């Protein structure tokens, strides 16, 4: 690159023509530009500045841009602050004009630094922002509930087209991935259990293991987590981007509630879709277990299905399925709410999407634990 060839320099000399020795001269040479000022700054920092009058000679200067001019301006201003009398000579008129432009702007020599807040202030700020976030979330849940109640009172006003579209995207399109993962999960459980069961000669109980684990716990949980990652994040990103581009404001001015158009269809669609997907992953998970039981434990398909009838009570099936709409509500509401929390930047879309997925998976697992406790009390 051309950088190598750039000639630049600075030197300070005592003026020989002034015998009273209080005068010195700063000679600038070559190119003072954004490419050379790093080295020039180092050179200037090493100068042992003589006191008294300072003459700056710019005759050897071949190029000067705003960055170079700034370095010179700053150096001279510092000299003046130390009591030196500075005179410029030999500068080309355009260089003088540039230096004057900078001094006319009155730019502070130290760039303004934002003072770092104390840890107490930071802690306070974070606490209030967390509280405010919780408050916003409550308000959002309230608004959504009102919108939902309104829609239930006037079902004709529900927007079926976006609901069906969301059913398609969040449900039908998710069939391959949820099916595959729950099938594999069934295989893994059967495989892990096989060794233990074989030791006791209790091969047939692999059916109880797979069916109960899948139906009661894993299949609703797994499906909700996949949907949180797949659809919850998409909701946040979509609403967040619409917020950045002011589309949400546009909706409001047209008189369409963002709740009605964006949130309700997603919530309703997920409440429809997640239980259906859970039934589907139940089947796929048990099928996975069945394949493994046949291969590893020699439990035939018909024996497996016969045992299934005894092992699984209807309540096990329902307790699993009952969680699905609750998980759907969590994933959809958190996803949409996070979208509305996006501030004006692209970065904020990414940050809120991350928060959305983490928060909804966290809440889904916590809720699942609560369900377990409640079901234990109810003796289900």
């Amino acid at each position, binding site marked *: *690159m051309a950088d190598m060839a750039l000639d630049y320099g600075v030197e300070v000399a005592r003026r020989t023509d002034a015998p009273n020795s209080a005068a010195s001269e700063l000679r600038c040479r070559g190119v003072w*530009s*954004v*490419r050379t*000022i*790093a080295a020039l*700054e180092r050179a200037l920092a090493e100068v042992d500045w003589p006191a008294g009058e300072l003459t700056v000679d710019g005759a050897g200067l071949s190029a000067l*841009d*705003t*960055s170079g001019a*700034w*370095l010179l301006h*700053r150096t001279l201003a510092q000299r003046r602050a130390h009591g030196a009398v500075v005179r410029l000579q030999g500068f080309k008129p*355009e260089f003088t*004009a*540039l230096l004057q*432009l*900078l001094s006319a*702007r009155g*730019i*502070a*020599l130290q*760039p*303004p630094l*934002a003072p770092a807040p104390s840890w107490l202030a930071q802690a306070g700020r974070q606490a209030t922002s967390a509280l405010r976030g919780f408050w916003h979330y409550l308000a959002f849940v309230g608004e959504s509930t009102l919108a939902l109640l309104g829609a239930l009172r006037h079902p004709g006003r529900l927007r079926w087209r976006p609901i069906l579209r969301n059913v398609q995207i969040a449900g039908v399109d998710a069939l391959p991935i949820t099916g595959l993962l729950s099938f594999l999960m069934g295989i893994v459980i059967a495989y892990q259990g096989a060794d233990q069961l074989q030791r006791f000669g209790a091969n047939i109980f692999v059916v109880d293991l797979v069916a109960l684990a899948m139906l009661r716990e894993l299949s609703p949980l797994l499906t909700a987590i996949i949907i949180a990652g797949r659809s919850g994040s998409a909701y946040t990103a979509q609403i967040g981007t619409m917020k*950045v581009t002011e589309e949400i404001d546009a909706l409001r001015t047209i008189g369409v509630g963002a709740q009605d158009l964006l949130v309700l269809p997603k919530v309703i669609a997920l409440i429809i879709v997640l239980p259906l997907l859970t039934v589907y992953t139940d089947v796929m998970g048990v099928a996975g277990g069945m394949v493994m039981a046949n291969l590893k434990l020699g439990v035939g398909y018909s024996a497996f299905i016969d045992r299934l009838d005894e092992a699984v009570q209807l309540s096990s099936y329902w307790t699993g399925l009952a969680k699905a709409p609750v998980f759907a509500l969590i994933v959809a509401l958190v996803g949409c709410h996070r979208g509305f929390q996006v*501030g*004006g*930047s*692209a*970065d*904020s879309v990414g940050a809120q999407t991350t928060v959305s997925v983490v928060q909804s998976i966290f809440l889904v697992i916590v809720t699942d634990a609560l369900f377990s406790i409640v079901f234990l009390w109810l003796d289900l």
Partner: protein
Amino acid sequence: MNAPGQDANDAVIDVRGVQTRFGDAVVHDGVDLRVRAGEVFALVGGSGSGKSTLLREIIALQQPSAGSIRVFGHEVVGLGDERALPLRRRWGVMFERAALFSALTVAENVAMVLNEHTELPPRLVSEIAAVKIALTGLPPEAGAKYPSELSGGMRKRAALARALALDPELLFLDEPTAGLDPQSASGIDELVRSLSEGLRLTIMMVTHDLDLLWHTAHRVAVLGHGRIVGLGTMAELAQSDDDTVRQYFHGPRGRAALEQAWKTK
């Protein structure tokens, strides 16, 4: 206003025979223009006349279908990103919608360019960022703000500060006053003039703003029907008898700007 650099050889931008087609639609059908060093050159034309496309072709973001575009004497058509880099360091671009990085403050937006292309110590970087911000007429506090906290006019100025970060020789402005109120727009007028005179930049802009044209442009090219239909100073174009040019300058708004311009002279 005197246009500096009358010599045809010192063309900073040299566009010859550029054709651009999108499918069947012909946007440019042989565009020729030359921008001289040190002048403020404006490209005007109706909506859809291909002004912004031509600008994007000159700054090597888009490829014309045929023709040659030379900037600083280097062919930019067919130039890869790698080889365009040394050229891109010599020009600055201000985009129509500012295109500031929304995750960074204004000062960080400017500093980022410096950090990418130079090895300046952090303190010097933040000082120079502050200088650029001051040069565009923004108050010092603006540096610590995020683009979303700024008004439209301030955002344009911040975008200009970023475009000026590396002290370019050539500055491209895409609709510098679009979406601004008249007062902010006339602030931009002043700014363009002071940059052209104070930093001796060559400026090429695309604009609709007739006031900006009267106040700043040394020469103006009118794009219509895929080619340059008028070229000259504003006073010369106002006398033109080409239909497209007449429509452009003698519409109701054109006349108002014209009268205003004569009055101030």
